[in-house]
């Protein structure tokens, strides 16, 4: 008996090393990032986040162009992906025949499994020419009065990157929204119908407002993914650290500047500044995750409260 207890104790201790290692790794990532960015943190302080000059030659580093590029591309991507993703999810759950819906859902999951470097390759050779030859001339011609659609048309740039990001996050939005919409109890839709609502009214007013917290959670997670996306963006955004209002102009994101310049960062301050950018990305990822988790928690919390009632 005591032999059992001892062997159990040893097994338990050994096994406990694994989750503890996982914790150490997370803490280690954070520690390494902070430690390695200390020189840059010391030299530039908080100004690092709002200085718009990124000049490795003069050892002058400000991350604003990257923060700007990341925000713009992610937001435009969300603007494109949310309506299409949620719309497609509604169609799959509410309108499409079950078999069709199942097949399409599998295909959407397929889209989600494509590696981002392949998206980038496709972006360079298909999306960018399409943007240059079709989309951007069209936008320039009819919406050129907006500062968003002015300036030289290279094809590469923030708009192409945004479209690319939208394609990358849309499967994610679809699959979460699909679950959320399918989880709304049928009787709520019946209630709307019983008041004389049309199908679309029942869906848009009732089903979506039931699912909005869950969908918002999905959107925030998708935002996290867009912010952290590296390859596809790096390959088509143009990699130019400037802040331009026009979506046609090249830009740069936090993730892509690391990808592009890390290997060639040849002096400590340069490296330290890039690692500080990684630190920013890491912190944003954590915040986004906590936000999404709180939202999802609030939804499931409300549901279990209802179940108790």
């Amino acid at each position, binding site marked *: 008996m005591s032999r059992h207890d001892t062997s159990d104790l040893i097994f338990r201790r050994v096994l406990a090393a694994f989750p503890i290692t996982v914790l150490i790794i997370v803490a280690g990532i954070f520690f*390494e990032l902070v430690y390695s960015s200390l020189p840059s943190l010391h030299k530039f302080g908080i100004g690092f986040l709002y200085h718009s000059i990124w000049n490795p030659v003069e050892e002058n580093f400000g991350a604003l162009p990257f923060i700007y590029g990341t925000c713009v591309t992610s937001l435009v991507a969300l603007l494109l992906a949310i309506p299409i993703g949620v719309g497609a999810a509604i169609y799959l759950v509410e309108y499409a025949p079950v078999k069709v819906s199942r097949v399409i859902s599998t295909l959407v999951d397929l889209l989600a499994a494509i590696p981002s470097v392949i998206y980038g390759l496709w972006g360079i050779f298909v999306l960018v020419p399409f943007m240059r030859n079709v989309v951007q001339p069209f936008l320039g011609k009819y919406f050129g009065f907006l500062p968003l659609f002015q300036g030289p048309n290279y094809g590469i740039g923030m708009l192409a990157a945004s479209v690319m990001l939208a394609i990358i996050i849309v499967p994610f939005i679809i699959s979460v929204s699909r679950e959320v919409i399918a989880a709304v109890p049928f009787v709520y839709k019946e209630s709307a119908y019983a008041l004389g609502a049309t199908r679309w009214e029942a869906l848009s007013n009732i089903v979506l407002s039931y699912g909005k917290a869950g969908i918002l959670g999905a959107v925030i997670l998708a935002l996290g993914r867009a912010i952290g996306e590296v*390859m596809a963006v790096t390959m088509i955004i143009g990699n130019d650290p400037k802040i331009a209002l026009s979506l046609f102009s090249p830009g740069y994101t936090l993730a892509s500047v690391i990808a592009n310049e890390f290997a060639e960062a040849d002096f400590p301050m340069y490296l330290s500044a890039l690692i500080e950018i990684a630190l920013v990305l890491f912190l944003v990822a954590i915040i986004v995750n906590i936000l999404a988790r709180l939202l999802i928690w609030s939804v499931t919390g409300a549901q279990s409260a209802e179940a108790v009632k």
Partner: protein
Amino acid sequence: MKDLVLKSFDATRLRREIWDKVMVVVLFLCAACVLFILFIILWHLIARGLSSLNPAFFTHLPKAVGESGGGMANAIIGTFVLLLLAVGVGVPLGLGAGVYLSEYAHQRFAQTVRFMTDVLNGVPSIVFGIFSYTVCVLPMKSFSAVSGGFALGLMMIPMITRTSEQFVKMVPHQLREAGLALGLPKWRVITGIILPSAIGGIMTGIMVALARVAGETAPLLFTAFGNLHYTQSLMQPIAAIPLQIFNYAVSPYSDWHRQAWAGALVLIVIVFIINIWAQYFVYSRKRWSAGK
């Protein structure tokens, strides 16, 4: 009041009906648009990939700039080496953590670990590359296969932890009790009874995680780094298909672009095969339990 309701109802009925019909079309177009993009991407991958693919692609090394031909044999091998290394890092850590969480952990500790793995899951892939760079590449003073595998392995941890915890928890309680009733110590019950019955689900989790990291490029940029030749030692830089695709795609040479498309096709096939394989474990497990 009744009149007002009837009047308003009739006045708006047609508009509401049209709106209802229009939205069906709009929603359909949303779904169609996503499918269309998927097909376009797959079409380009297959058409351009197939036309660039030849036996030499699998057996030859990359040629120097200007020479046509050559292949990605080194990158294909490199990707498998990196995945093996990643499995070596990710599977024990993920599986160990998952089993511990399910079988032993206190609520507080389990919550913390779960939260941390969720954080890890949301960390941008490039950050893993930097972490591996600072803890592997800098001390070893060289880009290496090991550092690349380490970065990919870390990325696998969250998913493996989650799925193994989940599947170990799903093992029926009677199985545990039966084992304990035989007088087996708990660790023997876990390794001898619980893990074998949860293995299908755990394998699926591992395969899905593997499929996800197989296509990763960003964490390899400054760890595995890439290599135009076969790698002799795990302490040397190593090629990987995604890295090679990236380098070729951004190059100005059309022959390299062709290689990139061929590489993309091979990569996507590998990723899909691993994903389908992953499903097989779940299904075979279902069959097994259905047969019981």
